[in-house]
């Protein structure tokens, strides 16, 4: 599933990163094409979060190159990186909301601060309201993050990641620590953002269900629900790539069918819960 769609939107080439001589990323290479979805599975501490932070240059790799929108971000200064990041939305693991700012100020933050976007001031309010309405939190504008529940904070994070309508959105463990119902709501919202805006979506998770949803379901704006892509087979011919990380290394890369067929016991551990 490569080649014919031109430049990859994100490409890692032999990326290694060390924390105190411990490898956090160990020779990671992959490419992601526009419009595709990518699920990164892995246990806690396997380097998933570091991978996302490396992807937008928050962390500089010790070795290798990262290309974002066709630019080698390991070789450009921070000021240019800032402009490049305005085309990427990111949801942090803990939400990463500014707890001394209101929800409205939080969601408006990228619009007001990313100068490359050149968002006119009088449009900010409307765009913030629209982004919050998409995650069904339009009534929380004046509240502070601490006044919201964990699931609501995650939704605000999704709104903030998507308010600038970036072509690439990265979600770091969007469902971690949430009950199954809230987790499903979050995944619905992620599919909604992906399918209404046609964004390239990367999600880091330890739950195989999340990847399964991303690969086999799509958002239907008519019903405001998600529905299976294909009714006949188990796997739709979707554009979802699965990556599995283990101790900083990429141990698997491929489609969902290949993932389920994998004989690697570590990879199997992630797939099993859904099968049984």
């Amino acid at each position: 599933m490569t080649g014919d769609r031109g430049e990859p939107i994100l490409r890692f080439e032999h990326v290694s990163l060390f924390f105190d001589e411990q490898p956090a990323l160990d020779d990671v290479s992959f490419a992601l094409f526009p419009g595709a979805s990518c699920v990164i599975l892995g246990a806690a501490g396997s380097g998933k979060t570091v991978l996302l932070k490396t992807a937008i240059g928050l962390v500089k790799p010790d070795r290798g190159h990262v290309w974002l929108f066709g630019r080698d971000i390991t070789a450009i200064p921070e000021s240019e990186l800032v402009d490049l990041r305005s085309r990427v939305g990111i949801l942090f693991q803990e939400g990463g909301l500014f707890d001394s700012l209101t929800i409205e100020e939080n969601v408006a933050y990228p619009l007001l601060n990313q100068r490359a976007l050149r968002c006119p001031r009088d449009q900010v309010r409307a765009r913030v309201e629209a982004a919050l309405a998409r995650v069904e939190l339009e009534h929380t504008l004046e509240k502070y993050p601490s006044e919201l529940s964990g699931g609501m904070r995650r939704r605000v994070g999704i709104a903030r990641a998507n308010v600038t309508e970036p072509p690439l959105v990265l979600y770091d463990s969007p469902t971690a620590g949430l009950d199954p119902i809230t987790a499903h709501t979050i995944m619905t919202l992620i599919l909604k953002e992906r399918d209404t805006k046609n964004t390239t979506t990367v999600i880091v998770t330890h739950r195989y269900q999340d990847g399964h949803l991303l690969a086999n379901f799509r958002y239907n704006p008519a019903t405001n629900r998600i529905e299976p892509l294909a009714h006949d087979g188990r796997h739709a011919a979707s554009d979802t790539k699965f990556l599995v990380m283990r101790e900083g290394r990429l141990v698997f890369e491929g489609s969902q069918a290949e993932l389920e067929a994998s004989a690697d016991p570590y990879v199997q551990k992630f797939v099993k819960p859904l099968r049984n």
Partner: protein
Amino acid sequence: MLDLLKPPILAFQEFFLLTGRTFRNLFRKPHYVDDITIQMDIIGVGSLPIVMLTGFFAGAVMALQMSRALNQYGATDQVGQIVSITLAREMGPVLTALLVAGRNASGMASELGSMKVTEQIDAMRALGTDPVQKLVKPRLVATAIVLPLLTIIADFVGMFGGWVVACPMLNLTTSSQYWSMAWRSLEYNDIAQGLIKPFVFAIVIALVGCFYGLRTTGGTQGVGLATTKAVVVASVWVFVLTFFIGKFFVSL
């Protein structure tokens, strides 16, 4: 031995890297004037009561302790001179800086530290702002403006404290002599070092506070540790620097 020396030297290097980045960004846009104003309010207006209180008692104590020594030489009329020179040259800048270090270096370290451990610093960078521009620069500029002003206030309140002890309480000298002594004994050298010191301290306090905040790791405990370190290091530097700046001005 080498392993023992490595962390502090690395920290020193990182501190100077942060200092360099902050100064490079000093005149570079965006300036976040709102943040500077807010910080000036927190650091300046917020510290005013405690700075005045300590300033008053510093001057009062000085007059009180000097009264005995001056009595021995029959030079109690000199009390205004002693109070004003010590305050302007040393006590005013150092005491004010220590108070601000305790209040605001800790505040900066804990605020930035909390933001660091909850990924807000990363979020800030991901959403198009440079934490050095948005967080460090406003704190540095605000402290550098406000600390000299606070020091001037502390100096004057301290002289007033000295007067309260010298004139109404102990009758060491007359009011007019106290004030004329206090006024005439100050030279440009004293004023210069009394204003340069708080300016230098302000830079150190703000940068140390922000530095320890930004390199916080390891959750809530890390924030506490960063706060403690910031206050201790900033205070120690105040004492070290006051000696060297003083030495420079004495040798002039």
